[in-house]
């Protein structure tokens, strides 16, 4: 079932380069603008990954020596960047750093030149993504524990060589594999390069594809070539990540938990708190404050003035029949539909693949090599190319259905992965006991597997819901005329200069994500064992 949908995305893109002669491929690839965009994408992803890793590694090393409660506090803190969609983060940084931004109003200097540069984009994206590496590395360090280091010390190694010869090599797989994920996310990110890069003519692959569709003449061939490159890169990076995990993970996991003792050195503790607070202020507090402040300001030009703050933006957003309220309703209903459908399809797929093995094993292997998610831009282009073909009697194109379809393509991997993993962890004796007790397949699914997997399915649904409500790329590309989602609404407000209403909406999105993801986590935590 899923394969059909997924396949629809891949071959249809190829179909275009098949019907249009192959000869277009080479000129397209050698087009300086495209190759420039590809080079920019790679450079940006590489530097974002490097900066994120360099931020995350020291933090996770310090995290390993924290007391449990302190560690949990900072962990929650660094979850917050996940809640801020990257395009909102970029807008927040614009408000902070641009000429006449919050920083200049408060401290008298601005960093607009820095923000609208390669460095600026890199920093903004790295600050948004470094928690991924931080969580992966600190979890890995926790598993490794202090045991290996202690043994090295007993063998006569000093702290420095213990770090370089023992701890760093052990944590490297986690570092590299989460780094590759950051790489993929950067390469498929649209919002930040579009918002910040456009100001200084910086074009990456995703924004180039967007341009090819929105600027006349529409260049489908060029767009699809770029999408192929995009998918290829995402695929390669994902394969690399999987191989690293497969080769190294079990070896480290085998050694139980012997967590390092919390450090007792006052100096180290002060340093730890200082570093964490600094990063948290920059990566979490500043963008959040910026969004919140803008959301309650009447006009940007009014500045940080007492008279300039009011609830007017919220009133605009919630005014009955307003564009904003319609966008919220559209997003909510799409997200609910996507969550329900993906959870249901995910459950059925998982059961077919895991528990009816003769049919499933090959498919499972195939699924496991697919990227966790196809770049959103590629999904959008694929769907446009597919459903724009003249021979369909009925097409979802130009209706809300195409958005739902796009969300399904984008999000299905999450529930499928979560549910197949969960189902594989359920011992088969649970099913067999039911069969032996006289139950048929339907009863086994209904009475045994469905209730056992319900919490995981709910959690997956919540994740899908949260991502759907903030999804920007496919929404922007596929929304039928006159229909807006929350993300496109925010984006358009920014385009039209009514930043404050957009920010009010952003704040709502962030709060909604927080509530929904929090609820999902709690449900997932209630799984049976």
């Amino acid at each position, binding site marked *: 079932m899923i394969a059909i949908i997924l396949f629809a995305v891949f071959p249809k893109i190829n179909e275009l380069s098949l019907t249009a002669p192959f000869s277009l491929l080479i000129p397209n690839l050698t087009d300086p603008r495209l190759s420039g965009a590809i080079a920019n994408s790679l450079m940006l992803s590489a530097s974002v990954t490097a900066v994120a890793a360099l931020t995350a590694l020291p933090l996770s090393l310090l995290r390993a020596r924290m007391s449990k409660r302190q560690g949990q506090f900072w962990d929650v803190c660094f979850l917050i960047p996940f809640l801020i969609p990257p395009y909102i983060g970029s807008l927040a940084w614009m408000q902070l750093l641009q000429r006449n931004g919050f920083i200049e109003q408060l401290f008298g200097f601005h960093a607009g030149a820095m923000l609208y540069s390669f460095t600026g984009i890199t920093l903004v994206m790295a600050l948004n993504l470094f928690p991924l590496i931080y969580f992966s590395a600190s979890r890995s360090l926790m598993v490794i524990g202090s045991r290996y280091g202690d043994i090295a010390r007993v063998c006569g190694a000093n702290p420095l060589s213990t770090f370089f010869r023992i701890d760093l090599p052990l944590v490297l797989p986690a570092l590299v594999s989460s780094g590759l994920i950051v790489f993929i996310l950067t390469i498929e990110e649209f919002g930040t390069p579009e918002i910040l890069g456009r100001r200084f003519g910086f074009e990456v692959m995703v924004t180039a594809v967007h341009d090819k569709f929105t600027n006349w003449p529409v260049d489908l061939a060029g767009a699809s070539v770029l999408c192929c490159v995009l998918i290829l890169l995402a695929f390669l990076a994902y394969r690399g990540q999987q191989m690293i995990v497969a080769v190294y993970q079990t070896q480290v996991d085998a050694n139980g938990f012997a967590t390092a003792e919390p450090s007792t050195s006052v100096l180290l503790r002060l340093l730890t708190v200082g570093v964490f607070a600094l990063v948290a202020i920059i990566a979490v507090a500043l963008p959040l404050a910026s969004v919140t402040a803008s959301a309650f300001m009447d006009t940007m030009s009014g500045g940080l003035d007492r008279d300039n703050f009011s609830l007017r933006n919220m009133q605009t957003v919630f005014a009955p029949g307003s564009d904003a309220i319609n966008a919220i309703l559209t997003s909510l209903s799409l997200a609910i539909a996507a969550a329900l459908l993906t959870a249901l399809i995910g459950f059925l797929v998982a059961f077919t693949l895991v528990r009816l093995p003769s049919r499933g094993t090959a498919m499972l292997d195939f699924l496991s090599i697919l990227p966790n998610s196809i770049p959103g831009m590629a999904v959008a282009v694929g769907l446009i190319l597919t459903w724009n073909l003249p021979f369909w009697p009925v097409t979802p194109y130009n209706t809300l259905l195409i958005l739902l379809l796009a969300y399904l393509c984008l999000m299905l991997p999450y529930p499928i992965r979560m549910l197949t993993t969960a189902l594989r962890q359920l*011992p088969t004796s649970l099913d067999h006991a039911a069969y*032996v*007790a*006289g139950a048929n397949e339907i009863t086994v699914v209904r009475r045994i597997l469905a209730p*056992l997997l319900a919490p995981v399915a709910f959690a997956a649904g919540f994740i899908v819901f949260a991502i759907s409500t903030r999804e920007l790329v496919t929404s922007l590309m596929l929304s039928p005329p006159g229909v807006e989602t929350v993300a496109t609404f925010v984006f358009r407000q920014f385009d039209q200069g009514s930043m404050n209403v957009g920010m009010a909406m952003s704040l709502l999105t962030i709060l909604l994500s927080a509530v929904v993801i929090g609820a999902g986590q709690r449900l997932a935590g209630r799984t*049976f*064992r």
Partner: protein
Amino acid sequence: MNSLNLHGIQKSFGQTDVLVDIDLTVEAGTFVTLLGPSGCGKTTLLRIIAGLDAPDSGTVHGRGMTFVDTQAGIFIPPQARELGYVFQDYGLWPHLTVAENVAFPLQMRAMAKADIRERVTEVLGAVQLLNHADKRPEKLSGGQKQRVSIARALAGKPSLMLFDEPLSNLDANLREELGYEIRRLTRELGLTCINVTHDRREAQLLSDSIALMKDGRIHQVGPPDTLFQNPIDVWAATFLDAGNLLPGALFGLDTPTVLVGRSAATVDPTGTLHGLVTATLYIDDRYESLIQVEGHQLKVFTATRLNPGELVCLMIDTRSVRSLSG
């Protein structure tokens, strides 16, 4: 009446033959254990009896019906065989309470609610878990979980019970206790039982009869005492750890290998075999010593302590020396 009859069972996974031409008859009301090393096909055989696997060829008759006949194309699915099955990992449904777990097979038979309640109380009483009826399985200890699993298997009043290493996840004391309990329950109810294990202790603890399996074939069948006193070859004697294996020449016999029971060797100054004590320990209520005799190692039980390095003479009761083939 034969309660279970397997004939000509073959099964292979890809290139490997897992079961080769298995014939086995289990009398009604007896407890038979399939004993063998891992990979000998015993679990596959149990799953074939339950219907969780299908043989490539052969027939399975049980409870007076034909479960499987590959030639006639008959295959009764597990849910229609009305067996009890006790899983190694218990297989208790974590989202149901103890009572709901036990009630499940009865619900599948569409019994009346009141009857179900009565029967659940009855079987939970039989395994002494009545006061845990409303708990979730996660709150129970390993032994209690296995009792629930047994109660669930008993609930539907099956005449044929299958056990998959029911004691292997339990610690030593509990194994013995639950072993006696399984023995008592199944004998009282006159159940026909098939058990699978790689552990000879578990087999001895539970069985009326043991079928020793090797490489997908049944190697030897017999009651525990016969099997352990008269293993048919060196492999069986070694796997069962039935006693000391020595060259026949030591006793003036032609056979290359003989089996000498552990209690057949005694330390006696008039003994003809001379040995060197290499290790000694105190186990249960006796001493157990390793003694080197002409390059062969013997394990011997004695009532008094022997010291490592000591030279001893061994007397062997020749009535318990058995020639072994292979």
